[in-house]
């Protein structure tokens, strides 16, 4: 059942992405793409000199793979292909990083390993011997774990003074939706922002456990639906709410899923023979290896989001260790940045017209993310030396506003950004966060 939901969601998501013209906008039109650290070897088709239609072709192939997952057709191949293609397209441009794309990538990767095609699939129809009635519990637990991590860590991230004590950024976001019918006017009330902040935090922290416990499960699932529909109405977060509403069904019992499947079979008038008593079994050695690998994966998932603690400074400000940590909807952060390039022979300084190279979205995302600024500085260095500037040095005047605070200078403007390399080391060229006590009210 999870396979069908996941396949359907991914198919929808991919088609939606294509239908909105985002493929063209995000992956064909830009002249410059930001790569992920450590993944600069992943080449965008355009960078390989391939024509633009290949980018669209990748998306079509991805939609086909999602359909394959949905129908359970050549499942391992479909799932593998989907995982690779989805991850590949995400790696094209760091600008478009979203936690729920990361989540999708992870789940797609896990799905490749799971025997999700052993029931109610075209594969079973093709080779009835594949059919099984039950699968080992760890396959279910794995997915539950992944979902639990997303929620729980998102909840942990909300245990932050800005979120709990100042209701930021919700107190900025909610009034903007005051035009909504019925509940709209409420969003202007500051207490509503506090209520939503606390409720969201509590929800994220508790929902994996409430879903696990069979007694609280039905109510918890109602909360899941309410929570995600609300976020879908309030914020432009695309398919994510629906993916979560669909995915969390994995917490329900096998009987529940079997009933759903039976209903679906009746609806489709396509009944597959049940094979009672047959259990999915792996070769013991393979299973042991797989479980060890997955154990390691679980450990990494648990520890990796905490890497921020190793960095000095304010996490929201420096964003060192921010990504891949399920930190969602936590910041209203905006920046304004202007670069200039200095000719090291003549000392002449040229301002850069950023929009010549980047679209508005890329510019906006870059302005608040140091590693992206660094990449762009390196790109400028190359571009301006082609234009005839001697050994260009790249400087930036950057300002960032965070959660309603007045914008402040962000990076050291006397450091040649093109001379720096990105890495795991703390970025000491980010100016310290001036955390003057937040003035919550007059």
């Amino acid at each position, binding site marked *: 059942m999870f396979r069908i939901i996941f396949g359907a969601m991914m198919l929808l998501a991919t088609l939606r992405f294509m239908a909105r*013209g*985002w493929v063209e*906008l995000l992956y064909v039109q830009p002249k410059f793409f930001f790569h992920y650290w450590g993944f600069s070897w992943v080449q965008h088709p355009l960078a390989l000199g391939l024509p633009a239609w290949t980018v669209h072709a990748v998306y079509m192939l991805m939609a086909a793979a999602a359909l394959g997952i949905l129908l359970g057709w050549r499942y391992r191949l479909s799932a593998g292909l989907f995982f690779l293609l989805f991850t590949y397209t995400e790696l094209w441009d760091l600008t478009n990083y*979203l*936690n*729920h794309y990361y989540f999708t990538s992870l789940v797609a990767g896990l799905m490749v390993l799971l025997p999700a095609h052993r029931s109610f699939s075209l594969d079973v129809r093709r080779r009835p011997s594949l059919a099984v009635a039950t699968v080992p519990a760890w396959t279910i637990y794995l997915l539950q774990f992944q979902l639990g991590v997303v929620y729980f860590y998102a909840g942990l991230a909300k245990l932050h003074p800005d979120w709990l004590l100042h*209701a930021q*950024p919700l*107190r*900025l*976001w909610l*009034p*903007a*939706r005051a*035009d909504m019918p019925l509940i709209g006017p409420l969003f*202007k009330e*500051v*207490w509503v922002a*506090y*209520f939503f902040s606390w*409720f969201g935090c*509590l929800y994220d922290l508790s929902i994996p456990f409430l879903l696990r416990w069979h*007694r*609280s499960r039905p*109510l918890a699932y109602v909360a899941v639906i309410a929570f995600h529909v609300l976020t879908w109405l309030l*914020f*432009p*977060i695309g398919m*994510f709410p629906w993916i979560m509403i669909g995915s969390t069904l994995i917490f329900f019992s096998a009987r529940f899923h079997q009933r759903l499947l039976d209903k679906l079979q009746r609806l489709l008038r396509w009944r597959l023979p049940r094979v009672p008593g047959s259990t999915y079994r792996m070769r013991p050695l393979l299973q042991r290896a797989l479980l060890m690998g997955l154990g390691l994966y679980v450990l990494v998932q648990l520890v990796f989001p905490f890497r921020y603690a190793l960095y000095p400074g304010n996490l929201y400000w420096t964003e060192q260790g921010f990504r891949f940590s399920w930190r*969602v*909807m*936590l*910041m*209203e*952060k*905006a*920046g*304004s940045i*202007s670069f200039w390039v200095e000719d090291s022979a003549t000392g*002449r300084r*040229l*301002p850069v*017209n950023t929009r010549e190279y980047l*679209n*508005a*979205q890329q510019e*906006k995302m870059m302005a608040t993310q140091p590693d992206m600024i660094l990449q762009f500085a390196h790109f400028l260095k190359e571009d301006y030396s082609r234009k*005839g*500037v001697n050994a260009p040095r790249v400087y930036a005047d950057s300002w*960032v*506003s965070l959660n*309603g*605070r*007045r*914008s402040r200078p962000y990076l050291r403007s006397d450091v040649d950004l093109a001379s720096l390399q990105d890495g795991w080391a703390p970025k000491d060229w980010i100016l310290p966060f001036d955390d003057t006590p*937040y*003035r*919550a*009210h*007059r």
Partner: protein
Amino acid sequence: MINKLLPLPLLLLLLLAVACKDDTGETQRVDFDEAAMLDNYGSNILLPGYAFLQQKTQDLQSRVADFTAAPTEASLLAVQQAHQQAWLAWQGINLYEFGPAEQLNLRRNISTFPTQYPKIINAVQSGSWDVNGLYANDIRGFAALDFLLYSENGDGGAILERFTTSTHAANWKAFLTDVSQHLHAQTSELYQQWSPTGGNYLGTFITNTGNSASSSLSLLVNQLVQGFEQIKNKKIREPLGLMAIDGQPVPRAVEAYYSSYSLPLILANLQAVENMVEGTYASGEGLGLADYLEAHHAAGNTQTNLAEEIRAQLQLINAKVAAIPAPLHQAVLNQPQLVNEAYTEMVNLMPLIKADLPSALSVRIEDYGDTDGD
């Protein structure tokens, strides 16, 4: 079983809600009527502003007709004055390039500068041109009229000669007529599209509430930024030569090279920026972005009073621009440091309108892509 459990979380939440209220003493709200603000921009600033521009270009067209019928010093002066009036009217609303203005691509369409005067001379000499064409931006609009109506060295006689005794006098007249008609046609179309009796974009604009990328609020904020960048980059930075590899000033890049009218145009444009921030219209002041910012500040949502800071910075910019000796195309050569000071203060406004303001009002910048707010 469910019934038994139901009150528990609810009770907990209620307790929490009450607890947080006590924690902070916050009972305030963002006291602001966004719909009234949009109505002010649409009904008091833009629709009358477009009507005013249309009327001024209509006037210009009539003065051109008078002049071409009987070119005299007096009729030339009348055309020049009508041209300046229309140009000033344009500065009042050129920031708002969305809706019909965006469809008409108005900034490029009627306000491309510097004009390509060799192309104009060629056209007049050859006797064939099409000022309505797709690639005619640089031979039409205000800057082309600036070239047609003014002499580089301020010699009015030379212009009169162009339209009376020169070999191609008839062509010069016809070209001038075509350009003024194109300008009037564009501004008329703009007004028509906005007018409640025409395309009624006014109605669309006023009811397009919310903060999505296509909302009216978002259009306003984005155009405030982009419109201001036009002033900063096109009208100041380029003539200063900051973008040129050799670093030399480019006097001919100013907006009104021939009439030496660039600085008054910039000041009028800056006044329009201030009006856009405050919601000021010709005969009064309504709700504007500044009021929205102040409502947020009053509710404790922003750390500083951004409206005040923007106001102060705009005043500083105004003073710096006013300190530049006219004409601008000589100032960039003779006193570049004064122009540079104005430019620097313009740069200093950017974080406020590009980071703080959109952030405080939760305005999205582009109409694509999902977010998860990080």
